[in-house]
């Protein structure tokens, strides 16, 4: 007996057939050819012209193809999705070219000594294998850390006040937070300078830098956290209260944990807001070239300051140095971003 049951294999009947893929490829080739032809025949010039013409042609070809094969509704749909894709590409273009440029120009300076020494004994136009940015690395870390220690509780507690406790001062505080998030960073620096450095400490220090960054960080964390807490359904608060929880325990054990991944995003945004701030640090942290791990006394270096100083020198070596600094800063921000994403990954998502 050989009535073999046909083996059923999982398939994707909705996937595009080889013919459809060939047509897609043809459209791309046609658009590429068209863009070369148009650029050659017309006044248009440069890479951007190629890219622009190519995008336009792809959209038109897709539209015509969809119109002929599936009708006007499908053709309109293809226009909308083409524009969405074009939007993504236009957004990605500058980002990737920045990343590419930073990597290309920064990798020359990426030597081990970069992470083990400071610039105490070297000028920016010394050879790239002398001196380093250890002082900037530690300085930025310490100052952003100080800012975070101050801003995290204040920012999140402010958000909790605005969304959960909703007291008499909700409106004025929300207004103030919004106004503060628009404050130019130099104003934060000037404020610390005139409120603390001139009258009290007399000298710049890492702590002052951290305070200035905190002024910039608090509104970012508070506003983002507020948005996140507002998304938590009222049901959960009611369930916590109905189980005999006090308001505070309901907030701390249910609302905040439910908002955890969003609150982590708020923190990332806060750090990202200040990590590259130059102006306030130039004013109040003194911008040292030597390794200084003590935030309470003496000037403290930072990435933005290091990069700014190296660029202003203008020699080949110093510019290499600046690019290396940018590359390291970028890598650090990425590491931070992915690490916090991992920690805060929503465990409910499977």
């Amino acid at each position, binding site marked *: 007996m050989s009535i073999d049951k046909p083996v059923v294999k999982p398939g994707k009947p909705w996937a595009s057939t080889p013919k459809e893929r060939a047509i897609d490829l043809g459209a791309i080739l046609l658009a590429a050819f068209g863009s070369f032809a148009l650029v050659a025949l017309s006044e248009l010039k440069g890479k951007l012209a190629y890219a622009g013409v190519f995008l336009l042609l792809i959209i038109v070809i897709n539209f015509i193809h969809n119109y002929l094969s599936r009708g006007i509704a499908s053709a309109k749909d293809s226009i909308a999705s083409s524009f969405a894709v074009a939007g993504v590409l236009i957004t990605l273009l500058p980002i990737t070219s920045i990343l590419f440029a930073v990597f290309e120009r920064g990798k020359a300076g990426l030597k081990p000594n970069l992470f083990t020494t400071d610039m105490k004994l070297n000028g920016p136009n010394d050879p790239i294998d002398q001196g380093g940015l250890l002082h900037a690395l530690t300085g930025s870390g310490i100052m952003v850390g100080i800012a975070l220690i101050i801003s995290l509780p204040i920012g999140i507690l402010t958000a909790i006040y605005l969304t959960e406790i909703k007291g008499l001062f909700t409106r004025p505080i929300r207004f103030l937070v919004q106004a503060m998030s628009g404050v130019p960073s130099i104003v934060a620096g000037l404020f610390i300078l005139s409120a603390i450095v001139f009258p009290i400490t007399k000298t710049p220090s890492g702590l002052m830098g951290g305070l200035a960054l905190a002024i910039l960080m608090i509104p970012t964390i508070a506003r983002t956290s507020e948005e996140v807490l507002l998304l938590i359904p009222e049901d959960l608060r009611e369930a916590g209260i109905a189980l*005999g929880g*006090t308001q505070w325990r*309901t907030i701390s054990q249910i609302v905040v944990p439910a908002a955890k991944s969003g609150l982590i995003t708020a923190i990332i945004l806060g750090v990202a807001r200040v990590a590259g701030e130059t102006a306030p640090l130039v004013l109040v942290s003194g911008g040292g070239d030597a390794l200084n791990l003590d935030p309470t006394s003496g000037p403290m270096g930072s990435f933005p300051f290091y990069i700014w100083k190296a660029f202003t020198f203008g020699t080949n070596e110093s510019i290499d140095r600046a690019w290396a600094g940018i590359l390291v800063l970028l890598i650090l921000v990425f590491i931070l971003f992915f690490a916090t994403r991992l920690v805060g990954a929503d465990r409910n998502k499977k």
Partner: protein
Amino acid sequence: MSNSEAQDPLDKGNEKMETTTPSSLSSVAANAAAKRKPGSGALGVGLEARGIHAWFGDKMVLKDISLDFWSGTVTALIGPSGCGKSTFIRTLNRMHEFIPGAAMAGDVLLNGKDIYESGTDVTKIRLKVGMVFQKPNPFPSMTIADNVLAGLKLAQLKVQNKDDLLEECLVRAGLWAEVKDRLSAYGGSLSGGQQQRLCIARSLAVRPEILLMDEPCSALDPGSTLKIEETISELSSTMTIIIVTHNMQQAARVSDYTGFFLSDGGPGELIEVGPTSEIFSRPKDVRTENYVTGRFG
């Protein structure tokens, strides 16, 4: 609804009287038969609502509701949407005051003591009067086990053996068999019906005397609804249950008493209350009859 269907709750009620704590339940029946007038003096046990009025802002949504819930009974509250059933049961565990702009008047006596008396610890009241909401709302950041025990942490209660309590609550909520191998999975990974039973288990963990259920099955499929009704029947031997429902059959199946609420555009009022079989077979008020027979609402 036909007469034979309406007999069901009565039969069920009789059955129960034979199988569970007969003395208390037959005294309940005797009380009901006596048609005690609510407000004629503290009963001293169970939950008594006296002259409850409720407002949202300037709008009065409940007018003079007096209703007694004897220990160990299941009371169904029925009535069209917007007549104030949810508002009423939320006055019973002081969740009403959680809504900004809410106001109320009247007394709610729990075992003879007014829960609105000044100086009352409101969190203790909510421990004794638990609540299950219309939409299942397990805590998303917690596992199934943590969800069940969440009330202990929230109210800072100590228990001897958490594992025993966990199992007991899940068994009583009729969920143990389905989740015993995945207690550390997240609550959100359960189906809607399972989530609702998880929420029931969560309410049971703090050992309430009274359980308020606000349309607990309205978001669920018929199978899950049936399971929850079984759970209610199980629980009713040890606690007082007040359930709001839009499902007449459900009211008939699970409850000993039924109260009918109605609002004619103004505040909601209690039209009629009595043993479930009577409300469904020979209601005194024509409006109740119209509603339970499906002629309006």
